[in-house]
């Protein structure tokens, strides 16, 4: 087989806001053969998307290719003049973006945008293009392939848009397609359909692909070879089999370790006695009140659950199922319309402002995005000092000592306290975010997707930290996540939510086989496994699939 793509010693520079020039890709070389799918894997900032975009001769604003070559079918994309580059894009190499929802122009119909490639490059008549697009819609198993193109992007679901963007990439008959994290923004149940559709189309048409992802299990399903990147440098390259089974480079081992570790069940001692938190028939929602006293959009419909002291409850479900609303309602940010919240034997007022300071102190919430939850204008010591003064009336020397202790607890160097949030990494920010909740000395912490914005390795370390703190401080967590492996790693009980209702509660050991509700079964079976044959051997009831993920 011949090499379709040959990347040699590729270097990309970026100019920072302060005008400093940083090399973000430092001499990367690899090949892609015809009809082969190569995955680029690494954490955020590893340069995987930057490399993938150079295949299109494109760099994001502020970046430029400073050295090396990117040969695509003999042409060096790094040196091609603008006009020539444009003529290659869409016809020889095409792009499937991370968020199709953002990559579709909201002002045009889908069909217009899908066949735009043929119009730009004058490939075929509009009618022929439309017919070809409809064929692609069918091949990608989209519903109503004849009419879906007449809709506007906001009228179809995220999973459908992602497949439509693949149709947009394939219509010009390219030799290679660049997939830029195409399933990261999707729910697991939707991800499966999209992956399946991609895989079957790519296999049938023998098109080469470059698949950018941070998720090893997803990559294992679709890639022939894997390139592992870190900090703009190539760490290891090998066949999917080899990378998964006998990784050579320490970083690859770490990456795989983080994945396997996350899949290990937690074991925490259970204590008897009255439950720490009891929630009864909680109803909450958004929008104006209707005449029957319920909000227009009900996000929670009668949810009941219990958290025992020293134990953790996981809440899982896809986006929009009401799991974050549940956390906000328990915390009192969004007052419940009806239902009772009992904390440590005492009833809690629905709204946070009606609760006593002591009640607030004992129940803390940690938000998903540390970036937006931490005040960018305050130093870390101010951020941690605020709850200390508020709940414990600490000041001066005493408060400073406690801030140091908190930083020790979350394994951050004390020197960080003088910095501002923007000067910390994502993992460090999430630790500060967590330390702020710990400062209150709570009994229960609501963790709302605390690891979703973090890379696998970093997230695994944060989970370890949470477990350790639990042992030391006898905390309880309510752990909300769409990532089942994370929940499995830390929780004693898992509640599955769907459309505002808790449909099932079960121990994590039963997640594989013991689920009884059809949606839980579907959800658990949809989590990708590291086994490359998993997707092909997976059998799911198509009716079930369309019933729960046809949105």
């Amino acid at each position, binding site marked *: 087989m011949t090499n379709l793509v040959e990347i040699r010693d590729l270097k990309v520079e970026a100019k920072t806001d302060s005008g400093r020039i940083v090399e973000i890709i430092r001499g990367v070389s690899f090949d892609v053969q015809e009809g082969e799918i190569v995955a680029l894997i690494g954490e955020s900032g590893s340069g995987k998307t930057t490399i993938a975009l150079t295949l299109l001769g494109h760099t994001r*604003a502020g970046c430029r290719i400073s050295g090396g070559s990117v040969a695509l079918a003999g042409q060096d994309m790094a040196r091609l003049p603008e006009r020539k580059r*444009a003529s290659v894009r*869409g016809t020889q190499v095409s792009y499937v973006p991370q968020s199709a929802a953002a990559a579709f122009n909201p002002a045009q119909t889908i069909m217009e945008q899908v066949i*735009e490639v043929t119009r*730009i490059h004058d490939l075929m008549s509009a009618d022929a293009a439309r017919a070809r697009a409809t064929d692609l819609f069918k091949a990608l198993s989209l519903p109503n392939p004849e009419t879906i193109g007449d809709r506007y992007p*906001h009228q179809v679901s995220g999973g459908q848009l992602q497949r439509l963007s693949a149709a947009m990439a394939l219509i010009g008959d390219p030799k290679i397609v660049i997939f830029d994290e195409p399933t990261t923004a999707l729910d697991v149940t939707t991800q499966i359909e999209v992956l399946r559709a991609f895989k079957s189309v790519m296999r049938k048409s023998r098109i080469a692909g470059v698949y950018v992802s941070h998720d090893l299990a997803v990559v294992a399903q679709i890639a022939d070879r894997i390139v592992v990147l870190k900090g703009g440098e190539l760490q290891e390259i090998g066949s999917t089999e080899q990378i998964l089974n006998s990784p050579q480079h320490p970083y690859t081992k770490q990456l795989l370790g983080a994945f396997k570790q996350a899949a290990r069940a937690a074991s925490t001692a259970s204590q008897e006695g009255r439950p720490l938190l009891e929630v009864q028939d909680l109803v909450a929602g958004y929008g104006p009140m209707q005449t029957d006293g319920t909000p227009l959009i009900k996000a929670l419909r009668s949810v009941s659950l219990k958290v025992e002291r020293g134990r953790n409850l996981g809440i899982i479900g896809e986006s929009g199922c009401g799991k974050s609303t549940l956390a906000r309602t328990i915390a009192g940010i969004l007052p419940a319309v009806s239902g009772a919240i009992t904390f440590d034997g005492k009833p809690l007022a629905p709204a946070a402002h009606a609760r006593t300071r002591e009640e607030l102190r004992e129940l803390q919430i940690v938000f998903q995005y540390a970036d937006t939850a931490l005040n960018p204008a305050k130093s870390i010591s101010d951020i941690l000092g605020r709850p200390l003064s508020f709940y414990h009336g600490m000041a001066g020397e005493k408060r400073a000592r406690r801030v140091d202790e908190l930083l020790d607890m979350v394994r951050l160097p004390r020197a960080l306290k003088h910095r501002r949030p923007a000067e910390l990494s994502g993992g460090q920010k999430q630790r500060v975010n967590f330390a702020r909740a710990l400062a209150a000395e709570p009994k229960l912490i609501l963790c709302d997707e605390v690891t979703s914005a973090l890379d696998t390795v970093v997230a695994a370390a944060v989970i370890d930290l949470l477990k350790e703190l639990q042992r030391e401080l006898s905390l309880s967590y309510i752990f909300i996540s769409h990532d089942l492996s994370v929940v499995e790693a830390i929780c004693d009980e898992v509640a599955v939510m769907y459309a505002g209702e808790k449909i099932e509660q079960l121990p994590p050991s039963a997640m594989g086989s013991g689920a009884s509700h059809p949606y839980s079964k579907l959800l658990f079976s949809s989590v990708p496994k590291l086994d490359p044959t998993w997707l092909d051997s997976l059998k799911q009831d198509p009716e079930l699939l369309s019933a729960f993920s046809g949105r």
Partner: protein
Amino acid sequence: MTNPALPLIASRLVISAITLLIVSVAVFFATTMLPGDTATILLGQAATPEAVAGLRKAMHLDEPAVLRFLYWAGGLLSGDLGTSYANDMPIADLIAGRFVSSMKLAGITALVSVPLALTLGITAAMLKGSLYDRAVTVLTIGIISVPEFMIATSAVLFFAVYLQWLPAISFANETVTWSDVLRVYAMPVLTLTFGVASQMIRMTRAAVVETLNTPYAEMALLKGASRGRVVLRHALPNAVGPIVNAIALSLSNLVGGVIIVETIFNYPGIAKLMVDAVATRDLPLIQSCAMVFCVGYLILITAADVIAILANPRLR
């Protein structure tokens, strides 16, 4: 299927009507608060108290302000703008001719400035960061910073006094041939365009730059689209809302600019009429002129909002 844009547009129109009501209240009471008693002014200092009282009664000036407002507003609605104090003519007649002249000036300014501003704004956004872009930016900021009366008087000094190409005063009724039109309108339109276009250029550039930074613009580029295509097909249609609003806001600045320009060039428009009315304390005329300006302003802003609503595909 009902169009979801209709209730939005309807509510926008209702809001405009309410605004107009509030504005009319403000205009009426602000003008009645002007110092001096109308009857005394009209009759002069030598008038007897009986004559003043008689006139006050005849003009309903002795009645409560709320009642007078209702008379006045009722008159406006039925098309009766009242009678001028100064020369006893129906205000509608006074305004009609002047209104046409002002609309001509504003219309020509819009015809010149909108295409100019859109072209400069869009091209500057396309070539963001280039020398051209920076030149346009510096120029527009420079012009925004110079007040209109300064531009107008400098233009008179330069074109009328030194070069003697153009007349310093613009009498619109002298326009017979095209060259007359050019001579009469050149300086007022130039002055107004400077003030109006620079604001539009900046806002158009900002709106287009923003949409060019979206993932769908990048996607279009990666489909092989040329820069021109990306801007015209993908960025512009999504920037229509902010651009139309920028245009409407800038054109409504014409209202303020027109007062200065008409005064300086002695152009017989409605703003000049209003300024003269202030000098003669002709309250009904001032009120009517103010209402004309407010209605013009409201029409522009409402039209911009309606266009922005219609341009949103989610509401189609």
